């Protein structure tokens, strides 16, 4: 092994000396909160981690073929309740040590260890039972039940056993800032950027010597910096800036398949908002068409709008989306007023009151959403203000969002946010009474019943039916006012070639990325 490491080291050194690779600078929405895949919380985290680690199995971004860079062979065992995995030989961690079955089993055991407080791991704990090494490169992963297609379920990143003293992994370890993986790049978080240095390996041959991730900030500055050539890419381009870039010969806009939808979560614990008729009225008071025009720049009747209204917790192209539930594109003040009166609210001096008290809505919005939908918070406030509600609007910083809002500890009445999904669109965490991301601790027996039905479904049609019913229920109960899905586009300079963007994970095909002179 030593001679192989030496050769790899020398080849890495040679790459550096010959300067064959280039550096790629790009703007992200923010800096990643962690580089430890067990604690990914944002899309930025997931994209950055994809550069540093290998997932056990992944899908090819072009052909959608299920592939693995680390698995040599596999074999379903124990009548479908386990899978025997033989790892490729010669794969090394960024510290030079070899990746073995011990690392694979360590990763599985870490995810199963209750001392690892990871939400990501919790999802695997539901069907993974354990792991047993059978020699340096063979591991047997056991499941709690028979899995028809086990490879497709095992999409976790592999962690190095040598970097941890126990299988209880926590997010505050140095690993979160300077992780060791087997991916194409070794990542290191600094105060204002994340540097990814190419790592030569038997299963990766990156062309780019280094990637530099920095926080984007002001969209206008990002766009001009890109046009000026000081940076090669922007991962998320706000819709308002796309027309400029589309017309440029120096920059290419690329689609990034990410299923994201925007919402206004309603605090059902607020006495005024407990009554669903009030929530239904609020839903009718939001003029989405006007919101979309003023904040995203989509004019009514625009063909191929990047922004499409939704009536439930799925993007409208999803099979889980119940198309019989209509969206509410414009406001209906008369109907809303009738609902509010029916709910016992009174209008005094143009302001809505509950009993003697005027209703004041505290509205919050995840601050960085303002880059994609400028002044959305203010415009929502204006619409509700015009309708007769006093309001206090406040942006919510990313840390406050994690600390308070998502964990159901905020004192807002309405919260504007966005959720992103990949192929799997499970929304149990958002709406179930015990959901981990249930913003206002919303609870409804009917909703829980449909979510349980989804989990217990025998067939995928039953799952779809359960979610269609859930959609209908949520559109009636309205713990969220559903706004729209917004397409995501990236912009890369034309000298960046081979830049295949993998849906959701983004950088899976980073080896093929290179920078050439135009």
């Amino acid at each position, binding site marked *: 092994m030593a001679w192989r490491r030496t050769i790899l080291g020398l080849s890495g050194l040679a790459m550096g000396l010959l300067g064959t690779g280039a550096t790629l600078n790009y703007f992200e929405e923010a800096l990643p909160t962690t580089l430890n895949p067990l604690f990914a919380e944002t899309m930025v985290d997931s994209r950055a981690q994809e550069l540093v680690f290998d997932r056990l199995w992944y899908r090819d971004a072009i052909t959608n073929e299920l592939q693995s860079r680390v698995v040599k062979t596999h074999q379903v065992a124990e009548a479908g309740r386990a899978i025997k995995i033989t790892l490729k030989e010669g794969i090394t961690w960024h510290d030079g040590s070899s990746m073995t079955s011990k690392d694979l089993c360590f990763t599985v055991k870490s995810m199963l260890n209750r*001392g690892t407080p990871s939400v990501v791991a919790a999802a695997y704990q539901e069907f993974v039972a354990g792991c047993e090494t059978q020699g340096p490169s063979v591991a047997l992963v056991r499941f709690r039940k028979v899995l028809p297609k086990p490879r497709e379920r095992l999409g976790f990143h592999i962690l190095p056993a040598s970097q941890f003293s126990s299988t209880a992994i926590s*997010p505050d370890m140095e690993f979160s*800032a300077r992780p060791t993986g087997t991916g194409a790049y070794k990542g290191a978080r600094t*105060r204002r950027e994340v540097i990814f240095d190419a790592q030569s390996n038997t299963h990766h041959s990156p062309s780019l010597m280094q990637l530099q991730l920095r926080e984007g900030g002001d969209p206008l500055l990002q766009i001009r910096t890109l046009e000026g050539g000081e940076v090669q890419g922007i991962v998320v381009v706000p819709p308002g800036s796309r027309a400029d870039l589309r017309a440029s010969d120096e920059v290419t806009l690329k689609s990034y398949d990410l299923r994201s939808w925007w919402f206004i979560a309603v605090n059902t614990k607020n006495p005024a908002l407990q009554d669903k008729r009030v929530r239904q009225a609020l839903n009718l008071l939001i003029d989405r068409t006007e919101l979309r025009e003023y904040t995203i720049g989509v004019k009514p009747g625009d063909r191929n709008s990047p922004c499409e209204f939704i009536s439930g917790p799925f993007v409208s192209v999803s099979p889980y989306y119940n198309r019989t539930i209509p969206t509410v594109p414009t406001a209906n003040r008369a109907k809303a007023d009738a609902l509010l009166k029916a709910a016992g609210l009174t209008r005094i001096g143009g302001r809505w009151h509950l009993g003697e008290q005027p209703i004041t809505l505290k509205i919050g919005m995840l601050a960085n959403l303002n880059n994609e939908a400028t002044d959305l918070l203010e415009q929502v406030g204006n619409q509700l203000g015009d309708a007769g509600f006093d309001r206090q609007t406040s942006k919510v910083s990313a840390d406050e969002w994690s*600390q308070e809002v998502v964990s159901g500890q905020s004192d807002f009445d309405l919260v504007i946010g966005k959720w992103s999904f990949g192929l799997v669109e499970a929304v149990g965490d958002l709406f179930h009474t015990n959901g981990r991301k249930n913003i206002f601790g919303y609870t409804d027996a009917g909703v829980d019943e449909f979510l349980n039905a989804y989990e217990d479904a025998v067939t995928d049609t039953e799952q779809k039916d359960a979610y269609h019913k859930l959609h209908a229920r949520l559109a009636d109960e309205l713990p969220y006012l559903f706004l729209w899905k917004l397409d995501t586009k990236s912009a890369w300079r034309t000298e960046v070639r081979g830049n295949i963007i993998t849906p959701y994970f983004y950088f899976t095909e980073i080896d093929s990325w290179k920078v050439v002179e135009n």
Partner: protein
Amino acid sequence: MLPLMVPAIITGLIWALPGDPASLICPPSRCSGTQALAERWNLDAGPFQFFVGWLRDALALNFGRSWSAFQGMDVGNLLAEAIPVSLMLVGLASLWIFTGVFGAATGWIHRRLDPLLQTSGMIPVLVLALVGAAIVDLTYGFGSSGQEGQMARIIIGSAVLGLADGAFAGAVAGTRGLFSSESRQRYVGVAILRGERELANTLPNVTPALVGQLRARLLHLLSGAVVVEVMLKINGIGDLLWAGTLEQDFGLVLGTATLFAVGSALLLVLQAMCEVAVALHVRRSPGVQAA
């Protein structure tokens, strides 16, 4: 006492804030439980044990890890990277002060310039920092947070720190005031009649006051450095302290705030040492050559 008081107060703050301190390290949206974290960070046994534990580690130069702002990064390393940057910033800025002191003491900076200096000194550090930040951001673009950009930020920052809030003007006026009042003393006149140089006579007597002034001005620079580092995105201690406070990263705040306290305490010690040195010098009553 200051270096002990500061972390003690911060520890009190951690427990004064509502909610589980461990959830600051890993919020529920990312972590399914924080018991293990609380144990590892001594957060499960009350503020006193936490404080003692932190102090014991800090004495061994182990400041722990950042909780949230730069999660997982070693605070000691962060400080080690930040100290030279802040020293360079404050060092370069203090050149303006020393120039002012020297220029005023030797009369190189003419009195007629005083009104101009006074007026320019009125510009607050915040405004100059804003302008500086805009210039660097738009001049360096993506590179503005790279090494080149950082150097530009430090140089502009030092100028901002040295000139704004009357730092330079104050140094000139303060020194001139000290020397002029001392020059009016009778012994100085006598000395001049004896053909001795004025500065050689006044300097030993004004030095203690001068050192006192200097310490106050350096302290002012140290405090102002936070504003400049934050506004100009300079990777110094002030910016660390700001980021830590903003994200309630007590792992980071404890280290940086204590370092600040140590810095100001050191300045006091330096002042005392200078005063002792001057006292010894005066006691040796150095002979002055007759003209």
